[in-house]
């Protein structure tokens, strides 16, 4: 074992993802000649659930959109199920995990193509788990994305109930429909009066 861990065993400290992750973690998205194991397409045609586009910006303490953030999401499909293997994901067209940087969209949005998740268990509102990483954060943050058209389920969700009421709306994505396509908007505010709720997971 490495000498530091022999005398000082414990979790490896987090460090920032920095400004230059693009060609390492999201090479194809940013046009570098390398592939990437995960991208912004979480669900292919055939995956169970309502097809949705999930988009938003990551906004700093001055109110400016951040153009070098990385957002990762994890979710079950419309039936509340996760793929159990790569083969399973291939067969169902549902990958459950997505990754998108904010540096390629002209408005610095992350844009995921996925399905609306089903609830994973009774009493829990449907939601997507998210990780946000960026230059200027030595440690990433976790948040959850709930849905504006699930008011009844949201009202009964224990995790939402644990959040101060005035801040709950920072966790709810807003639904809109145009030309038969469904979009949910979820802006992530790192600071300020509408700072998004981040969880100690």
């Amino acid at each position, binding site marked *: 074992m*490495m000498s530091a861990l022999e005398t000082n065993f414990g979790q490896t400290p*987090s460090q*920032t993802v920095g400004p230059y*992750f693009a060609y390492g973690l999201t090479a194809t998205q940013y046009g570098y000649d390398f592939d990437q194991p995960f991208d912004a397409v979480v669900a292919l045609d055939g995956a169970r659930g309502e097809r949705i586009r999930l988009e938003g910006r990551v906004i700093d303490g001055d109110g400016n959109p951040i153009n070098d953030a990385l957002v990762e999401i994890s979710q079950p499909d419309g039936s509340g199920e996760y793929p159990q293997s790569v083969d399973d994901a291939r067969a169902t067209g549902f990958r459950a995990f997505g990754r998108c940087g904010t540096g390629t969209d002209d408005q610095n949005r992350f844009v995921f193509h996925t399905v609306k998740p089903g609830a994973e268990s009774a009493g829990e509102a449907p939601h997507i788990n998210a990780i946000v990483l960026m230059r200027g954060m*030595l440690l990433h943050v976790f948040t959850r994305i709930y849905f504006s058209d699930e008011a009844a389920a949201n009202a009964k969700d224990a*995790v939402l109930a644990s959040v101060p009421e005035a801040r709950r709306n920072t966790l709810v994505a807003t639904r809109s429909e145009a030309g038969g396509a469904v979009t949910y908007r979820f802006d992530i505010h790192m*600071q300020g009066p509408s700072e998004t709720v981040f969880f100690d997971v």
Partner: protein
Amino acid sequence: MSSSASRSAPLPRLAPRDWPSHPSYVYPGYRSTVKRGPQQPLVPLKASLGELRQPVYGHSSIGELDHDLTRNARRNGEPLGERMILTGQVLDDRRRPVRNTLVELWQANASGRYVHKVDQHDAPLDPNFLGAGRCLTDSEGRYRFLTIKPGAYPWGNHPNAWRPQHIHLSLFGEHFASRLVTQMYFPGDPLLQHDPMITGTPEKVRNRLISDFSLDVTEEGYALGYVFDIVLRGADETPFENR
């Protein structure tokens, strides 16, 4: 095992994040944390292992040369610089190996220049080096990369600011909440004491970010060897099925 069965089984808890082992969100010495780090307290969320899966991937996600940065971007020759081997074991809190987990890596070239389009540092790019790789850990949780030792480079954080030589690493571990993105550094680097990413990390745990030089890993006549072991959050207890 059907997923409905796994949901109804009592699920073990993930070991908590060991906060004293990690930097805080806002550290003014690292200037850009000031407008980006959250300021409200985090809301506790007790995640069970069942809810927070790791992404699925397999050997099909990894190309044959993905672990070898000295070969995976060659155009007309070999990349310049000092060849090195980076290897280590990925463990959880309870010293159990984390098997078959994805390790992604990116770094500057030997001159301290990143391929990234926004890196404007006046140092040459290397046409034969991209600086990105990935691999899966083996049955003992070990990973291994062949690469070029990255150079130090200046950055705009403060006057005469230089990042120590480092390699970025991204790991998933067994659960969504065991995600770790970190950087490994080199022993004896004089820039370490001046680097706000190091000084923004609690002093007691800084040495966990510094690799060991290893003559055992070094390959005679070919490449120097460095060992960097990584500890991730894991399950609080052994899952019931495995007892």
